[in-house]
């Protein structure tokens, strides 16, 4: 069985006594993907932040790469976080830095990455080429559109080639075309690097793209998985959150077949 990457064990996180997530348990292994669906305020972002130790659970425990990070001191956490990449909801690019400095940031600051200075620029360029924004090196985040900022965020999350990548609502507030482009990039990152991926979203379509498509390096486009010699997508799980609780855990097929009225609202049936 592949290595366990992240495990939530009956985790509750509360703010001022109000639970944001309650008794959440799940696990994800190396090479797998997890799509967390839920309405705004259902605790999706809290799950991602807790996974990296940015928020501490009030009860339960969180295991990241085989280590219990529930009460781990921040200093030790930096070493583990260096193996993770994250795209925040509004990209969270540093607006006083240029795009180049933003993408270079994890290379220069992650404790265990230690990228030699002469390799920083080529790696930044490569990461930006991946998201097709190689011409923006000297620009500032405020000069880019929302979708472009999201793409820079994806480049920054992946520039260190982390083992686990977390995406917080990557398509929120974007038009459908840009949203699909962003999802295509996420699938591309997943399939090219075989990174363990967790994506949190309100859109069921995002999950469906994760489940049904694969990136084809030959045509450099997304192809329907399971056709044209493309293998089907394995190891993809869905989690549906409602008011801080997990109300569904299973595969895309099980999700489609669920009779639960809340879940049905998320699922677009063909």
């Amino acid at each position: 069985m592949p290595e366990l990457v992240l495990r939530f064990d009956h985790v509750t996180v509360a703010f001022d006594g109000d639970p944001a997530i309650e008794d959440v348990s799940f696990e994800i292994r190396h090479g797998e993907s997890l799509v967390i669906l839920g309405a705004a305020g259902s605790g999706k972002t809290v799950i991602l932040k807790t996974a990296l130790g940015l928020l501490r659970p009030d009860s339960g425990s969180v295991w990241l790469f085989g280590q219990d990070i529930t009460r781990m001191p921040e200093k030790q956490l930096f070493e583990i976080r260096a193996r993770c990449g994250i795209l925040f909801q509004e990209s969270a690019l540093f607006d006083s830095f240029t795009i180049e400095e933003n993408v270079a940031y994890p290379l220069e600051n992650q404790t265990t990455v230690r990228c030699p200075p002469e390799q920083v620029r080529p790696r930044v360029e490569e990461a930006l080429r991946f998201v097709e924004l190689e011409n923006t090196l000297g620009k500032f985040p405020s000069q880019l559109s929302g979708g472009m900022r999201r793409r820079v965020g994806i480049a920054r999350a992946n520039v260190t080639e982390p083992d686990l990548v977390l995406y917080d609502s990557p398509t929120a507030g974007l038009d459908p075309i840009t949203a699909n482009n962003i999802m295509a990039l996420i699938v591309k990152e997943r399939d090219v690097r075989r990174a363990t991926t967790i994506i949190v979203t309100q859109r069921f379509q995002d999950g469906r793209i994760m489940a049904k498509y694969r990136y084809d390096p030959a045509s450099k486009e997304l192809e329907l998985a399971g056709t044209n010699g493309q293998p089907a997508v394995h190891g993809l799980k869905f989690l549906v959150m409602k008011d801080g609780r997990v109300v569904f855990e299973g595969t895309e097929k099980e999700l489609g077949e669920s009779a639960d009225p809340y879940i049905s609202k998320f699922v677009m049936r063909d």
Partner: protein
Amino acid sequence: MLDFLKTPVLSIQDYIVLSWRTFKGLFTSPHYFRDTLLQMDTIGVGSLPIVVLTGFFSGIVLALQMSRALQTYGAVNQTGPIVAITLVRELGPVLTALVVAGRNAAGIASELGSMKVTEQIDAMRALGTDPVLKLVKPRVLATSFMQPCLTAIADFVGLVGAYIIAFFLLRLTTSEFWNGAYRILEYNDVVQGLLKPLVFGIVISSVGCFYGLRTTGGTQGVGRATTQAVVVASVWIFVLNAFITKTFVSL
């Protein structure tokens, strides 16, 4: 019953924790020298114009007011010493600190507050940097180093302002004014005049960082954090000034 005390006590506790982590951070690498220099430029050099103006006009009004009072005793030639003592001991440090608090505690709180509400602080932690070392330490170091320098400049410019009044309006000679001003100052005055800004610098920057880092509630929250930072820093400047003055007066 004592629930109303919970919030202020928790705030003080959080402030002490942040201060302690910043203090420990002084001896922990990485040190981010570039950020510290950048902050020295923004906070120190950037505040220079307003500090110079404040000092200059304070010196002018001090000379005018003091000379009027001294006239009744026929001691107008004592204007230099009196202005020097008042400026170096009290007005220089306090006025400079208030101006810097208005400018930089607000600046720091709003900058860090905006970073907080746009998740940039979380991003920083996720990408391997401790915000206390990367953001708080350079600001506290820069402000506590620049504040005494700014105060010294304000004191000097204030004396120049007072000298202009003394020379042109009060008809004192140059040597009368400057000798008097120079002779009256003792070691104690200078130490007090430089210790105060050091303490105020620490207060201004740490309070600014504290309110910035605990910002919640979007842009409105940033506004609130900024206001609180300036108010709290200013109040602490007055309170600590009283304590330090008391200590030095008793010496």
